[in-house]
């Protein structure tokens, strides 16, 4: 396959990936930092996400209000996301306006102010964000399941952090975190769109090249010991609807089994859309678990999926339990289906179908420049861009025996967490 992109490293250690796409007069630029909630310990959980918020509060050169307005005035869009393993910032702009975004990113990699006054109002914004999350039964259940699944590894806590820490973390804690991790040698930039690679590369070197490298940031990694025996957690809360979430320990995205497990996920719960923008929409009504659980009225809805992570994380199956059933009945029906995929070989046709679904999802994802730029850096966070480019090829090598093997290896009751949300009814407080 001819090389479709350019990858290079600046002398300060910053990695750049550039991909020309001339389908629309747009350019999307993403800067990724290898820092996320897995790099946090109590009482500083949620600090990576707080730092991301403070990165919108301005530098001396670019005060917050000025930048928000400048990007919007140019018809651009920008946002940021914090995840377990990474934090990322993007701008998508009309092609002739991208320089503003590049200057902004180079500047805030080192010059953000983290003013105390700004932090005190941003703290309550994030507390409000968490309160909004807590309104959702599936957030409460997901948080409990994740905590049960990770005792040792820092994947233990939610990205947004614990309320106790959000209330007491200080401005100086944040600034230290920022200075530790926001260095060019810990950053990857992915940029795609309507530009000339040579010209763009020269500009990036000019803007990011002079930023000094810092000490190599530490990466917190305490491997989770193998789980020995099924864990059960339950959460009670308002409402009339029960939910069931079953989480299995899954390998990292770069593990050879990850692709076979993605095919298995497609068969069990419908294809997971890996695109951040513009993919998806494929329903899962003929997946094995939908047929077994929803068609047979143990559940009214079902979803499944895993995340591409650096260290082993989880595969989730989430069900909205049918009003006439209880979560235990739904779990028994789910286990019957899991056993079936472990006992009987799936057909080659089912694998072909999963591949076509993935092909369609990737095609939908290429309608957006923003999504194509997203992939350049995202894949580098847990593997390399080559992982993305060869994804469909790798799927083609998966056999029915592979599916059976990974189903037996990873979908074991002994290494899962089963979580139930038990509704306490309307009008009753906790």
């Amino acid at each position: 396959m001819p090389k479709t992109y350019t990858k290079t490293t600046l002398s300060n250690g910053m990695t750049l990936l550039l991909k020309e796409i001339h389908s629309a007069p747009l350019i999307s630029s993403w800067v990724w930092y290898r820092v996320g909630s897995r790099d946090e310990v109590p009482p500083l959980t949620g600090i990576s996400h707080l730092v991301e918020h403070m990165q919108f509060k301005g530098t001396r050169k670019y005060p917050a209000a000025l930048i928000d307005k400048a990007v919007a005035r140019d018809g651009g869009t920008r946002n940021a996301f914090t995840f377990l393993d990474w934090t990322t910032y993007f701008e998508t702009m009309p092609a002739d306006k991208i320089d503003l975004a590049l200057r902004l990113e180079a500047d805030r990699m080192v010059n953000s102010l983290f003013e105390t006054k700004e932090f005190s109002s941003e703290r309550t914004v994030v507390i409000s964000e968490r309160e909004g999350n807590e309104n959702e039964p599936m957030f409460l259940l997901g948080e409990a399941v994740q905590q049960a699944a990770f005792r040792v590894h820092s994947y233990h806590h939610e990205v947004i952090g614990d309320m106790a820490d959000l209330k007491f973390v200080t401005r100086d804690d944040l600034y230290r975190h920022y200075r530790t991790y926001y260095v060019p040698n810990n950053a990857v930039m992915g940029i795609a769109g309507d530009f000339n690679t040579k010209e763009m590369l020269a500009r990036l070197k000019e803007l990011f090249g002079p930023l000094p490298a810092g000490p190599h940031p530490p990466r917190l990694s305490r491997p989770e010991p193998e789980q020995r025996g099924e864990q059960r957690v339950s959460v009670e809360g308002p409402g009339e609807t029960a939910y069931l979430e079953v989480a299995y320990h899954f390998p990292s995205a770069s593990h050879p089994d990850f692709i076979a497990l993605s095919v298995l996920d497609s068969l069990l719960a419908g294809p997971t859309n890996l695109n951040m923008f513009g993919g998806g929409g494929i329903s899962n009504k003929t997946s094995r678990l939908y047929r077994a659980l929803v068609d047979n009225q143990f559940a009214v809805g079902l979803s499944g999926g895993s995340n591409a992570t650096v260290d082993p994380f989880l595969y989730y199956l989430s069900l909205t339990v049918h009003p006439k059933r209880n979560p235990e009945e739904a779990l028994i029906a789910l286990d019957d289906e899991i056993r079936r995929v472990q006992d009987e070989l799936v057909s080659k046709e089912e694998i072909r179908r999963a591949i076509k679904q993935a092909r369609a999802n990737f095609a939908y994802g290429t309608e957006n420049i923003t999504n194509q730029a997203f992939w350049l850096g995202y894949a580098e966070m847990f593997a390399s861009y080559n992982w993305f480019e060869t994804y469909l090829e790798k799927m083609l090598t998966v056999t029915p025996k592979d599916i059976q093997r990974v189903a037996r290896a990873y979908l074991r009751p002994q290494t899962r967490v089963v979580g139930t949300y038990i509704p306490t009814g309307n009008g009753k407080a906790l």
Partner: protein
Amino acid sequence: MKLRLGVHRSLPGPEDINRAVLSNGITVLSRSNFNSPSVTISGYIHTGSLFDPDKKLGLADFTASALMRGTSKHTFDSLYNELESVGASLGFDSGLHTTSFHGRALAEDLSLLLHLLSETMRQPEFPKAEVEKLRHQLLTGLAVEMQDTSDMADITFDEILYRGHPYGRSEDGNPDTIKAITRADLVKFHQRTFGPRGMTVVVVGAVEPKATVDLVERVLGDWKNPDQPDEPSLPKLKLLEKTIKRHYKIAGKSQADIVIGTNGPRRKDDDYMAATLGNSVLGQFGMMGRIGESVREKSGLAYYAYSNISAGVGPGSWTISAGVNPANMDKVSELIIKELKRLIRVSVTREELADSQANFIGRLPLSLESNGGVASALLNIERYDLGLDYYRRYPDLVKAITPGDVLKVARKYIDLDRLVIATAGP
């Protein structure tokens, strides 16, 4: 940097939108995009919850949801098997005036997608067992909605603003009406109200427009319903006589939602553009405009606080929404009302307006890059008679608005003594 193509070249216009009207009244719009091997279909037919009897609220929505539960040729499972096996999707959604559909597929599967669209709209069987399954799913959906502070604040807002008007009724119905709807109701509603007159189909993607029109003609050109009814006429909306405040209680929640607002323009009203630009200054531009600046940036009282204009065929609404800690509801309401007061007292500055105007024009390429983005633009053009050259004229339409126009439209709709203040939470 090298010379760029003009903005105009990438925007849809008369020479690259193919529009045809079939003999049975269906309008087809199509535009090519060969940058990705995918295709999107989108459109609507003229039936919706305006046809719902009071005792069977949710009937249009139930019917739309049941279309894909089985047809004369396919069971529920075999229908979805056709779609999912090729990574395609198709779904229906019912609104007040229309029932819309949306689907996507690899371009090689467009024919399959259109055949299934036609089949589900024209030959649904409403199998009894599937209807009962769907009923449970709808009831669960309502139970979940009743726990959602944002949904319930919106519903409460509509009930007050549109009291005595069909827009005040819930399109999803309520548990009693969903339980009351029978299979026979679905069959009858479908036979009576579904038809091709006024239907619009938009196809965007890696396809040739002319061949697409031919394909739609082959698949849907013979659809007829001579008895297709006209839409019920809308009564005049009674304006509020004073501010009305109502709280919907949901125990055990850690966040409350506020919706404050009033009437807004219809999409075809002359002052629609001035209102949307005013709305941008108020609660959209940059980090959610003046509302975001006041409620989020300065006070740190909410993760989201923004304003919105909802404008369609009938009377629209102009709202400000925020998710806040229950203890801060009054404080945030005051901040919001203060911003409304400012908007009607003093005209927005030239600079503020110019910012929003530049944003409206500059964001066009971004909003029109995907097939879905272009499809909704073409649907807008057709639904509101905007003209095929609308996006070419758009920059001039935006630039023509003055601060005086914004002040005038804000004063026309916003009256601080006649607001709806709807909240939901503990």
